[in-house]
């Protein structure tokens, strides 16, 4: 909204404009705006602890007292609870205000331990800073302070020091109002008020790190950063998280050339300052001692370190040999982990070599044409009247998008209509949830959208479809059919594609997607398994843990003559590679990235790449030179200019704003309509369960396994069914059962889970413990499993 100052323009006054005076300066505020927020815009800083611009005010700490002129003289008001009013006169720094603020600070410090020298917050602590700027300088308290046991772990990650807590209610409000995980609360209110969890129920929220970030004192600290650095030693740069495709804005902080912390940055269109814990803490994997520092080549004695020259030469030879057999003898899998520039360099190299088998999606995404449907941004989706969810559990896979959609539903801007086979994190906030069984979603969508109640809701305004792959054990076609069914009912619905992998959208648009009539990742793996591919390049891809069907991956990796891997670490997939080229990791390289809505924002290098590792784009360039095909770039800037000039969608990033926090949206193409085949799911035998396989936040992803603070949170695999199904199977909760499908079977513990609908069995993907992959056949339509007791 633009604020019009009528005095300047002489135009009709904006009905939302409110004229106030702050410290003698006339200013125009917005209707409903709080005094503290208006004062922030005029640079009249008012001290505060509990106020947070992204959460409703509670007036807990009373630090923000200011004077407002009233007919009876100046009155002290709490500026975070008082909205502006026409003609209001505010003073933020009179003697009376100073005295009041000093008084509040003295009280806040009465019980504060003042252990700043050993407190992680010291140096960036609002309490310390404001005690200095707005405090009395001394205390009259001589009494003994309150004492509590020094920090207690309230979760695997977060520690709470109750002595330092000033009871501002930020963490508890965040947990309840923003994350929806009210696992901490004020307890023993009164003299002993303290933040606490329920006894023995930890604060295991996926968003717990945000409470650590917004705690205005050192009461909440997180294991990965405790005692790692002092704020004044930190060096930092703004960047974008690429752990998933939400693309949250972050500040990457390092000390002594090692990553030590990420903090969320508030950008309006994306993350509002929040991060999820996986994105926030998996920086530890960048520091992992397991990082590759040198290129490796296979010798009789296994993988051995060598020089780049040798490694590049042998990789080039392998590619050359394979190409001599035909272009379809080489394939490139991956690329979603890197930057747009990385992907583009590899796409250029592939173009030059005529390699058209390339895919940044690993069989768990959707046809890339979803990027060309009528697109919605995150903001547009969150302000639509109706949001239709045809997506995986966003709380698990795209956590901060879950926060945004939850907010939209909670603030009653939007009504969520969810289609799912098991309850998701958003189910409690959905207006209607419709159950489907994998395979019949299109029919369920059609029926649901034709009821009067839903039709009426759809006619209320814009409809947005959040479209992603909810189940790895079914054909992607069912999702596309369901989307087509939505468009039948609501032709102008907008689509927010939610493909989860970091920069998958950028990589696909930059060209790492099958060209001509080449097959996708699964076709490539099948061709490899059939011995048709001589040289397979894994560009930061770990198909053993990324691709649902491990069987085909095993066969493919065994069959290919030469395997080249570009990665940061050894993984299940590249342990037997012929050449492994060490890649620079997140935080070690610059460039741009694209989030799920097509927003291009920058990524900044903070630390030196480990060992001799280098960014993917550089590897592409050098490999090209070794192959005799120069892709013609020698710097990142040059590469970026070339990308912007060559790929139309990226032309938007000519805009200088693209390097600022908000980034810029990709240039959109004229929307196309969706195509889906008419595959049909077979009827389910009523003894069987239809399988749903999907991810949870913490799984065996390399970045989680290599992060010491996260690895302990990964759960063991289990098969989840509705509690009422246990009797039918004849087993008790937690016992081992045999789960069989088409001749193969696994043994896994069974878990009663009321969030799983009847007739469906849910297997979380890529968990520790039992290997579930043998069950999956992702080119099949659906997967039915039989669950039997073990005799």
């Amino acid at each position, binding site marked *: 909204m633009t604020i019009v100052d009528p005095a300047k323009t002489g135009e009709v006054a904006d009905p939302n404009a409110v004229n106030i005076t702050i410290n003698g300066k006339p200013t125009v505020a917005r209707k409903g705006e709080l005094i503290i927020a208006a004062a922030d815009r005029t640079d009249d800083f008012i001290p505060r602890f509990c106020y947070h611009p992204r959460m409703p005010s509670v007036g807990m700490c009373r630090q923000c007292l200011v004077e407002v002129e009233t007919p009876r003289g100046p009155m002290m008001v709490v500026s975070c609870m008082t909205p502006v009013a026409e003609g209001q006169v505010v003073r933020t720094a009179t003697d009376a205000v100073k005295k009041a603020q000093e008084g509040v600070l003295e009280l806040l410090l009465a019980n504060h331990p003042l252990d700043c020298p050993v407190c992680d917050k010291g140096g960036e602590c609002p309490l310390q800073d404001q005690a200095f700027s707005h405090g009395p300088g001394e205390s009259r308290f001589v009494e003994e302070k309150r004492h509590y046991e020094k920090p207690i772990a309230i979760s695997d990650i977060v520690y709470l020091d109750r002595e330092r807590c000033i009871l501002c209610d930020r963490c508890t409000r965040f947990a309840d109002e923003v994350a929806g995980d009210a696992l901490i*609360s004020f307890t023993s209110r009164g003299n002993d008020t303290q933040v606490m969890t*329920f006894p*023995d129920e930890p604060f295991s929220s996926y968003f717990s790190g945000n409470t650590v970030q917004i705690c205005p004192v050192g009461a909440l600290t997180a294991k990965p950063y405790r005692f790692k650095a002092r704020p004044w030693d930190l060096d930092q740069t703004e960047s974008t998280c690429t752990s998933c495709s939400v693309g949250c804005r972050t500040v990457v902080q390092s000390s002594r050339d090692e990553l030590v912390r990420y903090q969320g940055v508030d950008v309006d269109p994306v993350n509002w300052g929040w991060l999820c814990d996986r994105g926030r803490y998996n920086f530890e994997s960048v520091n992992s001692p397991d990082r590759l520092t040198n290129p490796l080549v296979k010798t009789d004695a296994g993988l051995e370190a060598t020089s780049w020259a040798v490694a590049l030469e042998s990789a080039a030879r392998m590619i050359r040999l394979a190409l001599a057999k035909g272009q379809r003898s080489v394939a490139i899998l991956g690329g979603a982990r890197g930057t747009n520039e990385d992907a583009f360099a590899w796409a250029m190299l592939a173009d030059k070599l005529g390699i058209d088998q390339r895919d940044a999606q690993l069989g768990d995404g959707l046809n890339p044409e979803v990027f060309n449907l009528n697109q919605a941004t995150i903001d547009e989706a969150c302000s639509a009247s109706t949001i239709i969810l045809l997506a995986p559990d966003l709380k698990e896979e795209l956590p901060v998008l879950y926060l945004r959609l939850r907010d939209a539903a909670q603030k009653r801007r939007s009504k969520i209509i969810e289609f799912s086979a098991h309850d998701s994190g958003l189910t409690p906030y959905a207006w209607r949830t419709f159950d489907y069984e994998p395979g019949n979603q299109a029919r369920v969508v059609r029926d649901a959208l034709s009821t009067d109640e839903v039709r009426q809701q759809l006619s209320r305004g814009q409809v947005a479809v959040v479209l992603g792959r909810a189940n790895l054990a079914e054909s992607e076609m069912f999702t596309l059919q369901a989307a087509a069914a939505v468009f039948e009912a609501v032709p102008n619905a907008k689509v927010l594609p939610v493909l989860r992998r970091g920069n998958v959208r950028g990589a696909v648009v930059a060209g790492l997607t099958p060209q001509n009539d080449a097959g996708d990742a699964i076709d490539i793996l099948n061709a490899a398994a059939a011995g048709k591919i001589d040289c397979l390049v894994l560009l930061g891809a770990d198909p053993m843990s990324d691709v649902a069907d491990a069987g085909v991956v095993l066969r493919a990796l065994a069959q290919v003559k030469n395997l080249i891997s570009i990665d940061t670490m050894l993984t299940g997939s590249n342990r037997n590679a012929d050449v492994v080229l060490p890649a620079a990791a997140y935080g070690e390289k610059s460039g741009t990235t694209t989030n799920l809505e097509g927003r291009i924002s920058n990524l900044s290098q903070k630390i030196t790449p480990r060992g001799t590792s280098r960014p993917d784009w550089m590897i592409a360039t050098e490999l090209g030179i070794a192959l005799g095909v120069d892709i013609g770039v020698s710097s990142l800037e040059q590469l970026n200019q070339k990308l912007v000039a060559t790929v139309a969608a990226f032309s938007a990033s000519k805009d200088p704003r693209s390097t600022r926090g908000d980034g810029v949206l990709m240039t959109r193409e004229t929307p196309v309509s969706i195509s889906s085949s008419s595959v049909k799911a077979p009827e389910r035998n009523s003894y069987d369960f239809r399988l749903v396989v999907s991810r949870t936040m913490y799984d065996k992803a390399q970045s989680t396994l290599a992060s010491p603070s996260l690895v302990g949170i990964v759960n063991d695999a289990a098969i989840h069914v509705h509690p009422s199904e246990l009797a039918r199977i004849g087993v008790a909760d937690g016992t081992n059962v045999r789960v069989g499908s088409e001749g193969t079977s696994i043994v896994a513990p069974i878990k009663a889970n009321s969030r799983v609908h009847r007739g469906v069995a849910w297997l979380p993907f890529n968990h520790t413990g039992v290997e579930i992959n043998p069950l999956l056949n992702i080119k099949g339509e659906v997967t039915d499993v039989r669950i039997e007791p073990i005799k």
Partner: protein
Amino acid sequence: MSRLNEANTKLAREIISRYPRPKSALIPLLHISQEQNGYITREAMQHLGELVGVTSAEVYGTATFYEMFKFEPVGKYLINICGTMSCALLGAHELMHHAEKKLGVKAGGTTRDGMFTLAHAECQAACTEAPTLQVNYRYRLRVTPADFDKLVDDLRDGKLGDEIPQHGVLAKVRQVIAPERAVGAMAPEDVNDAPAWLDGKAAL
């Protein structure tokens, strides 16, 4: 089993239906659970959370505000001796010492047989009758050491069974609210009109 039993669960559901927002029913439900078990168990808090749709941490946060909810087992009879000014001036400390000797426990403790818990209390608002105590929140006024001994003996002998029910029991008379008076679940911001059963009469 310290979740609510079947009868109490049914009662809990009925109470919940009286409020537009289920969690508003938390305090009465906590009373029911304390009545059932003598104190508030963890399982009961988890159960209440499920019933009203909040987390156990929120139930815990709410419950722990109230001094009268106990989170550890207490004796069948909870004896609170007032120690505030008027009572203190009229012998409360001596009374407490006497009580400690008589029961063989320190203030805050529970007798081995689980019959009595002795506790300090702040002003019980009967200062003119100091020193005072409450047994399961039933008053005893101008209490002398001899009165105290008799009280304890009578309670042990079950002579006051009618007058003083065991800890947690609030009242023998239950309030009956007709089902049509229940507001039922709805968003509180949607509750704009006086309830229909008020029949146009002024709000209470």
